[in-house]
């Protein structure tokens, strides 16, 4: 605290203002594509032809219902997919992390390395064979074709992070629960999980973000329009409304919004999660 004050007094006001100006310029440059996107989403064709990159009036709100009609389905699909994935990832991930952290059993180290070494296997190696596998299993154009591989891949990082965390919980807590007659599942549910709530929530946010933004795998697995997720839906939408710029950009805005709104409410969780614990070398 003392140092903080010293630093403050040491920094001349001029320097401070300069830093704020530079940061503000960077922020504007980072956001202007999205601002222009917002401007264009309110334009009709003649406004687009005459003043493409500025805000023009009247605002054509009617672009939004047209875009929404198509995009809402993709958003719903993405919600299904990322919710299903994150639930699966958390169930498999927490249970396995718990087993690896709290039990001693024959083959423990084998299983541990078998799971953790998958972090070294990049998606690029398995992409094509996974596609063939999913096709053989008849999962093309089904939600399971997305869910199962996503859960299989997503749980690894969760196990990696939570195993260390669960192992750091003092054994006494579990011992006293055992004396009270708690089963393994109960100690897991009533001791390990509540203590790691924050970590689990962070991992869930990261997982949802990854699934929501994925393009390649849904592009391979899903070809039916009614199952498309938001990313590949947007690509399809793009070819549907090509040259109808107002509607097209309204669609872009709609695609950008769901997680942005969620972020507004969970930014603390998200930011703290990224900066504490979970991501370290």
């Amino acid at each position: 605290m003392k140092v903080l004050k010293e630093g403050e007094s040491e920094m001349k006001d001029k320097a401070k203002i300069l830093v704020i100006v530079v940061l503000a310029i960077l922020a504007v440059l980072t956001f202007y594509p999205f601002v222009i996107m917002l401007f264009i989403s309110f334009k009709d064709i003649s406004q687009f032809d005459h003043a493409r990159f500025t805000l023009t009036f009247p605002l054509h709100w009617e672009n939004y219902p047209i875009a929404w009609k198509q995009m809402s389905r993709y958003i719903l699909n993405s919600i299904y997919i990322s919710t299903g994935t994150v639930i699966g990832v958390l169930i498999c991930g927490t249970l396995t992390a718990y087993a690896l952290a709290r039990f001693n059993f024959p083959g423990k180290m084998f299983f541990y390395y078998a799971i953790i070494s998958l972090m070294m296997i990049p998606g690029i190696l398995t992409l094509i064979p996974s596609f063939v596998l999913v096709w053989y299993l008849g999962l093309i154009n089904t939600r399971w074709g997305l869910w199962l591989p996503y859960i299989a891949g997503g749980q690894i990082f969760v196990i990696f992070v939570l195993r260390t965390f669960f192992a750091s919980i003092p054994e006494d807590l579990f011992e006293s629960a055992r004396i009270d007659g708690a089963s393994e599942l109960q100690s897991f549910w009533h001791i390990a999980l509540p203590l790691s709530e924050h970590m689990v929530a962070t991992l869930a946010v990261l997982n949802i973000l990854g699934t929501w933004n994925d393009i390649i795998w849904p592009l391979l697995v899903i070809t039916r329009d009614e199952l498309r997720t938001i990313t590949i839906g947007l690509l399809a939408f793009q070819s549907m409304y090509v040259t109808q710029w107002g509607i097209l950009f309204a669609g872009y805005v709609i695609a950008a919004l769901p997680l942005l709104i969620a972020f507004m409410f969970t930014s603390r969780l998200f930011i703290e999660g990224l900066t504490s614990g979970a991501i370290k070398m």
Partner: protein
Amino acid sequence: MLSQSNTKKSLLREVWKKKYAYLFMLPTIILIGIFSYYPAFSAFYHSFFQWNGYTPGVYIGWENYKTMVQDPVLIKSISNMIILLIWGGILAVTMPLFTAEMIFWLKSKKTGDIFRFLFVAPVVIPSVVGWLVWRFFYDPTIGLFNTILGWLGLPPQTWLGDPNIALYCLMFLGFPWVNGVSMLIYLAGLQNIPSEIFDSVIVDGANRFTRFFKIDVPLIMGQIKLLIILAVIGSIQGFTLQLIMTNGGPGYATMVPALWMYLNGVAFQKMGYACAIGVSLFIVIFLLTYINTKYIRSGTEYEGS
């Protein structure tokens, strides 16, 4: 004999006693067996086959790997990848670190938090949205960049359609390249530097720039290393940007090995050849990660709470 069967029995008993552990891990084991290990082995196995994915395939030995060495598209794509990889590495240690330093310098919790929020928010917007807007910026007839050139009285460019500059257009995309997640990781690193260290330097009368190179950089070397290696691995694996913006074109001006693998597998049904490219990329990534964790140690890593 007897003792052997005894140990076998006691092992089985031990396994039975710990059945919960296996039961807890069962979903994970089934899933990674099917969707992680099987495809990984399949990739290695089928890289020695001429395979279309539908029929069993024909064993052709090292033929796919020999084809790779002589594939002009693949060779061109490797040089593109190396350019993008170096660029990605440079971006990882410049703009996000610069921004994090500035936010850290501010020392003002409120202003700092506002900027932190602003730079992290774009992370949750699907990257495809940003790319499509940038593709529109590069549009030769109605795009932003040609409009600006028009105002300046300069001749229009075809940007992504010009094989000489398409790759640079992809590199410029995302300007000013402040990656919110990397920025956060640096910022956390800076905030974790114990204040006593700054104290001692203030006494020594070091200015801000000396402090940056003498204290900040060495103490966040872990974060710098992590973000460089992630950027490099990302450039080797990633091809979504190319797929959406240029599909590797015009010609093969923006082709990267990962996209070439994807196209061979999905568009040309040359799954065996695609697997061989995938295996090669895996080996490169594996070696880089191994070298990074084994040999590149940061000079002064801060140890402590």
